[in-house]
């Protein structure tokens, strides 16, 4: 990230708002890792921010926190990527990561068409959705955390 400083405004499911300052891409990944540590499965994390804000960097950290070793690559082209949970992590239920880019979607029906509704809210999955405002996501489900990056 460049310049590296970001401000995250985090709204949790109860409507509490926190602000976090992030100094570098490494710290952003570390924050994602800490967020993942709080996940029990079924969480939806909504990420808002312009191109280049660091949404993918944050998602890489969340994946690392879930013990997923695979590279997290941009879901822009295929819209949704699913990464299997790491069974070696020793948890009773490893959590998979579903990473969605809703930028080109316009309705909730579009998310159903790509099969995203099978992952969102599923107890074995943590779902990260970029551009949640595009596909009526917020009308259909309540994110565990809604994060705006500026």
């Amino acid at each position, binding site marked *: *990230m*460049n*310049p590296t400083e970001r401000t995250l405004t985090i709204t949790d499911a109860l409507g509490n708002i926190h602000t976090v300052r992030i100094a570098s891409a490494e710290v952003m990944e570390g924050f994602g890792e800490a967020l993942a540590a709080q996940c029990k499965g079924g969480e939806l994390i909504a990420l808002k921010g*312009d*191109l*280049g804000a660091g949404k*993918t*960097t944050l998602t890489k950290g969340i994946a690392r926190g879930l013990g997923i070793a695979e*590279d*997290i*690559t*941009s879901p*822009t*082209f*295929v*819209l*949704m*990527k*699913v990464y299997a949970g790491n069974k070696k992590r020793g948890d009773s239920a490893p959590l998979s990561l579903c990473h969605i880019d809703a*930028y*080109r*979607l*316009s309705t909730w*029906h*579009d998310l159903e*068409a*790509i*099969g995203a509704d099978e992952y969102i809210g599923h107890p074995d999955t943590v779902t990260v959705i970029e551009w949640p405002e595009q596909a009526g996501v917020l009308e259909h489900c309540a994110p565990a955390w809604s994060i705006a990056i500026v």
Partner: protein
Amino acid sequence: MRILAIETSCDETAIAVLSIEDGIFTLEKNLVSSQISTHAQYGGVVPEIAARMHTESLPLLLKEALDGPRPDYCAVTAGPGLITSLTTGVNAARALSYSLGIPLVPVNHIEGHVASNLLEGNAIEYPALALIVSGGHTELISIPEPGHYIIIGKTRDDAVGEAFDKVAKILGLPYPGGPAVSKCAEMGDAKSISLPRPMIESNDCDFSFSGLKTAVRYLSEEERSRVDDVCASFQDACVDVLVSKTLRALRTTGARTLLFGGGVTANRALRSAFTETMSRDFPMIPFYFPSLSYCTDNAAMIAAAAYGIITRGAIPPASSWKPNPQWHIDEPLV
């Protein structure tokens, strides 16, 4: 042997008929119905609309493609791509295979891009190396023998074509971004704006283009207003990294042929940089760029890849697979 191939992994509906006689390819039909102008108004491919347009175009193209001798095989792209688009093509191919009583051959889209090099009779010596670069993919693939693929380098974030699209968006240029950026780049000075070469020094063949997009976004207002210079400098950074990593892969794999594929290989700056570097550093290694019509998505390349699968006796049972939007070329289809 005659192969009818269907390709609908993204926004082009394509059908081709390829006949092969004594190993010689004759492309009898090569039909493409592009959706680019429709999706341009949305700034990118809209999955629901793409699937609907495939459904509308397929019967028309199939009618034209089937106006001739009966094919012996039906090939179809089964991944990677947009799930809604892939499913439309696979359903049509399954129906056709069943009604004509001919085998169905699922093909990996990336294997298709590699095989686009076979369509023009290029002599490929193995081990070979392929650089596949497009809106959705950036991969260096080692090919020790026909049909055996090992991904030795890939992007860790955005595909290079995607970076072009996103930079175009940041600069306010039209969709699709690749052609728009390279057109502006022709009038700009590639050395005038300093941009990073992400991962160029890393000790592997992986790529990263996300940070380059971010660097463009955070240029000063004055610099960003010189759109032609930004485009030229950005394109130069992308090409530098692609050339450098490909040369590293050539050295580590000992490849005897270099192949290119995917929409970004239509880029003129990329072609001339590789031509210059290869003739200077690797004059003994032949390298092939597909013709422009085979760089972008087409069904002829899917038919060419299917021919390899058929001759290797590697057609999976029709009941064993379904379209897979994340199908990696080095994994079996399930």
